[in-house]
């Protein structure tokens, strides 16, 4: 009875969701790579990106109803705004909640606590400032319709997020593999002390890593908001799933995060075919616990610091 109806549709939808999870998961993995710490406030970076994208798109769009190329332009604009918003919040987070503790060589527990504090601060501040009801983004394109391939309906939204995510993933791959910043990130991930002796400015590399993760997470926030709207609490569940994805692929491993995101997105949708939708989050959490028990290093292993 499971796996009969709309199997491919669920499968492709899962891959599209998986790309979103991958974008968020990369924020966890990048920061984990350089600090060996989970950035608990990444969910709020994602949320800030959603709001930044929403406000910019809403301001530009005014009363008009865009279509065709204008829609594409607005999506690009919103994604860029989300990326900037995410980057700003991620940078501030590093400055306020991480750097003072790093200066003092505080224990790991202190970092986690200050990150969770920053996360709740931002979460509730956004709730206070923007109100606690959701905003839906203006209508940019015919949402559910799309093309039909071999009898399987493919939503336009899936195509949009998959293309946007793939562009960003390729760019990130190039940045980490071929730029000075990427070399810095890999060096710090391998051995921070030695990297600093070799002239890498650790503080700067860490801040830039946060910004890089913030760009991806913030952009994902806007893309997520396109279909689900933006609200102060939007970050919690996607971020928990993205973390699962990062662990599933092997935390600290960039390609692992992408693979983990895709696998999680598909697995979660497969679960939804068989169980009621309310249990979607439970499926993802079950996967997290199962991975931690069976293979805590993830599918591809924790390849900290290698070239992506």
């Amino acid at each position, binding site marked *: 009875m499971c796996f009969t109806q709309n199997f491919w549709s669920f499968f492709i939808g899962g891959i599209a969701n998986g790309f979103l999870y991958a974008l968020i998961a990369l924020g966890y993995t990048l920061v984990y790579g350089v600090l060996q710490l989970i950035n608990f406030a990444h969910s709020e970076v994602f949320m800030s990106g959603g709001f930044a994208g929403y406000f910019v798109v809403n301001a530009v769009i005014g009363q008009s109803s865009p279509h065709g190329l204008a829609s594409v332009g607005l999506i690009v604009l919103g994604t860029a705004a989300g990326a900037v918003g995410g980057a700003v919040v991620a940078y501030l987070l590093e400055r306020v909640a991480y750097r003072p503790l790093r200066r003092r*060589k505080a224990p790991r527990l202190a970092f986690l606590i200050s990150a969770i504090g920053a996360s*709740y601060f931002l979460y509730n501040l956004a709730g206070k*400032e923007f109100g606690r009801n959701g905003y839906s983004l203006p209508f940019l394109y015919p949402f559910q319709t799309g093309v039909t391939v071999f009898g399987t309906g493919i939503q336009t939204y899936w195509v949009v997020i998959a293309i946007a995510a793939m562009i960003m993933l390729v760019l990130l791959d190039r940045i980490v593999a071929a730029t000075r910043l990427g070399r810095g990130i890999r060096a710090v991930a391998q051995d921070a002390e030695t990297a600093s002796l070799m002239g890498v400015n650790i503080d700067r590399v860490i801040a830039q890593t946060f910004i890089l993760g913030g760009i991806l997470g913030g952009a994902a926030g806007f893309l997520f908001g396109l279909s689900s709207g933006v609200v102060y609490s939007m970050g*919690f569940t996607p971020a928990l799933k993205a973390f699962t994805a990062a662990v599933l692929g092997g935390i600290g491993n960039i390609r692992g995060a992408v693979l983990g995101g895709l696998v999680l997105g598909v697995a979660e949708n497969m679960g939804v075919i068989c169980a009621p939708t309310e*249990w979607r989050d439970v499926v993802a959490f079950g996967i997290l616990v199962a991975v931690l*028990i069976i293979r805590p290093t993830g599918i591809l292993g924790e390849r900290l610091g290698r070239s992506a």
Partner: protein
Amino acid sequence: MSALASTTVSLFRSARQSAHARRLVACLLGLIVLAVMTGPSGSNTAPVSGFTGSLFHPRVLVFIAIGLGLWGLITAQHRWGEALKRTNDNLMTLPRRMMPDRRVRLVLYAALLAVAILVPLHVNAFWQDVLVDQIGIYVLLAIGLNVVVGYAGLLDLGYIAFYAIGAYSTAFWTGALPVHPPMVLNAFWAIPFAIGTAMLSGVLIGAPTLRLRGDYLAIVTLGFGEIIQIVATNLQGVTGGSQGVIGIPHPDVNLLGIHYSWLIDPLPYYYLLLVFVVAALIAYSFLEHSRVGRAWTAIREDEVAAQSAGINVLKYKIMAFAIGASTSGFAGMLEASKISFIEPGDFTVQLSILILVLVIFGGMGSLLGAVVGAAFLQWFPWYLKEHPMFGFQDQDLYIYLGAILVLTMIFRPEGLIPSRRRKREFGLAEHGLGTADAMSGTTDPVP
């Protein structure tokens, strides 16, 4: 024009390098954030009105003035350093120095106990309820979480889940749930079941994750806290779903000729709670100085060394986690049978964070800190809320709690009333000795 630009750039550069300028910027930004936090709220129809209403309003000048004053204070401290610093240090360590020996401490504890016994007799019914539901229960929860975070150095972000488990198992054993127990018990006799179920679920969640890096425990418990809520909402046939459960009976005891029933009046619950709080304090204080407590200390200070000294690290971590969970389960049982109504919305992840703030603010690893921190942080917002001059929305409280977590970690990680041992550990860890937590299993420092 270009001269102006280059002057600005060089000013900016020198400002960046000057510690004074950096501190000034930090103070001003901090106070502006505070201005936004305390300002009016925005809404969906006017999403930026919160920002504009708090920043483009004369009140922001007050905050800027406070920021400048703060900067002046800090600068003064740095310039005329020693004397001021000494006063500051003296103030900071005052609570600890005030109780140098055992007798003074015992007198202090007796006085605290007397206050705890007498206060509820002199407040009105509203505050008696607050004393039980908001203060007493949370003091107990903080004492329990202190075992996990303070003693064992683990981070549990889903602590309220065990509270929910305690509450729901009480509802189950008293026959209030749609599923019926093999025999219906009175709420008092449901206590061992509530504690046992919570402890068991603590072991089940802890055992697979405690083997791993401590960060995983934090995120798994965070997820677990959320899942418990989803399960309670969606398993309609078992938990009563989102409408919750009504009619959980009040406890009564009929033992050795003593017969007593707890009813609606909050006072008897308060004293029952007080008995358990004091019992937990005594028990955990003994535990801290027992073999188990020493094992926890060893694990916190250096996990690898502890392991090679023959300590079964996993066993002691699970033990701490289970003790914490059972305390939480007991608190859940008590609250469920007092209110006699529970719903999934009572057990949000936010509450787990709240309890964490109570422990961190008071001082992790310090029982007195957990009690005083929890009592103060739970009382103060209610005081403000009831006070005609202030008054804020419930949800805004969490903004301040988040800020407290960050600020405590930056400026005073050992908390308000530090545990001496814990404070020393933080100092040592900052000099590269030991870890002061049970997070990594190795002593790798954060770069």
